[in-house]
């Protein structure tokens, strides 16, 4: 019996495909998310919109809160560790969380090094803005990738940009001759073996979700039609007027992403969406996606 293998780590993400992972800050939120049909919840102390508003240092959540959420639902529970904070990740693994998100939404603990994710039995998901970043994280052992988008804004533009960037770079690799791959690996700052693999297959070796700015059923369906494997919704649900209805609608739009009549039906009467912040209104230092490299 082999535990903590690549296959079982990446395999859990395969099971989440076509689903919605929701940020929750307490057991009640987690129950609402599960009832709506979420495939997993992300336990954190404050949703990104509040982290943005409150400022200060954002850290791993209180273990008691994570355990309360684990006790409240049967779906997988994920939790966030700061970039490079391998002790927070060790703590989360000891709590038995199902996935660790090494997340730019929290304040980075190390500006040079990400966590050595191979050293853990628990799988990791990491954010990426482009192919080089995605492949560096996979090279460090990430078993799942998500676009960084721009968390806590309700503006989907960055998630779209990051996904299109990653996809475009992968397509370009598939058209290259083998002798061109090394200089491309250098330019991307990506491990050569992974560049070779993508030139061959045209896709990431791990599941790739959208995150950062998804606030409506149509946003979720947009990302699915672009080709992501599933979506994370952070502030978009519990900072909106009617979280239970919106959560359910986003789940249904993610499954029926190719059916505009269903997206129209579930988009009705959802109440106020989260108050958005246009990404272009943010100062460079206010952007979370620039954290990590």
């Amino acid at each position, binding site marked *: *019996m082999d*535990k903590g*293998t690549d*296959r079982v780590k990446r395999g859990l993400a395969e*099971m989440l495909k076509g689903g919605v992972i929701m940020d929750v800050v307490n057991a009640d939120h987690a129950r609402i998310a599960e009832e709506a049909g979420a*495939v997993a919840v992300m336990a954190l102390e404050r949703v990104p919109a509040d982290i943005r508003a409150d400022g200060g240092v954002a850290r791993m959540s209180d273990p008691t809160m994570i355990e309360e959420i684990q006790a409240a639902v*049967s*779906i997988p529970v994920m939790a966030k560790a700061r970039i490079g904070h391998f002790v927070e990740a060790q703590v989360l693994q000891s709590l038995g969380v199902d996935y660790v998100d090494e997340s730019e939404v929290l304040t980075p603990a190390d500006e040079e090094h990400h966590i050595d994710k191979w050293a853990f039995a*628990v799988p990791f998901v990491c954010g990426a803005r482009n192919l080089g970043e995605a492949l560096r994280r996979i090279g460090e052992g990430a078993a799942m990738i998500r676009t960084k988008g721009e968390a806590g804004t309700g503006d989907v533009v960055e998630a779209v940009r990051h996904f299109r960037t990653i996809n475009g770079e992968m397509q370009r690799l598939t058209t290259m001759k083998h002798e061109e791959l090394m200089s491309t690996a250098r330019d991307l700052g990506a491990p050569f073996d992974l560049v070779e693999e993508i030139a061959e297959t045209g896709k990431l070796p791990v599941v790739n979700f959208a995150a950062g700015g998804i606030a409506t059923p149509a946003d979720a369906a947009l990302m699915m039609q672009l080709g992501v494997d599933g979506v994370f919704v952070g502030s978009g649900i519990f900072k909106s007027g009617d979280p239970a209805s919106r959560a359910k609608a986003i789940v*249904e739009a993610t499954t029926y992403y190719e059916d505009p009549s269903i997206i129209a039906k579930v988009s009705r009467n959802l109440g106020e969406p989260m108050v958005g912040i246009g990404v272009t209104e943010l100062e460079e230092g206010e952007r979370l996606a620039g954290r990590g490299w």
Partner: protein
Amino acid sequence: MPVGILALQGDFREHAQLLNGMGVETRLVRKPGELDSIDGLVIPGGESTTIGKLADRYGLLEPLRRVVRSGVPTLGTCAGLIFLAAGTTGPAQIHLGVLDVVVERNAFGRQVDSFEAELDVTGLVDPLHAVFIRAPVIDKAGADVEILATVENDPVMVRQGNIIATSFHPELTGETRVHTLMLNQEG
């Protein structure tokens, strides 16, 4: 006629790729009408609570029950096993109730306890390499249910009439023998 693969959520594309690789035509099923004229039915891995809720909201529960009870060869893997079952040992959730077993969800523990192992399966000559992810086991099985494989004495693969169900994921390892078993059975 194609094999229908329930595509509400989960790793339905892996099942489709595996079957297509075996020369079997497939159809993704998200609406009741897509269950018409199918030669087999696959319920994939995924989150069983999500699949159950979506099947309920989009009117798929009764049509799925009719298809399985009509004798169409059916395979459920992991969440598919849970969805086919009569119930779980844990909190209530939505089931088809066509397979006479009660399952224990996450029976081996949380994700850090997920594992791979070699498995001896009744009817297969060589062992099968099986991937278990937050896997369920069968806690109770009715008299008509044949146990095809076990891990530490817990049943992880069963057959009842036209239904085969597994706790593990043959679709993740390129293993075709489970799908072949499913397609070759008569209702």
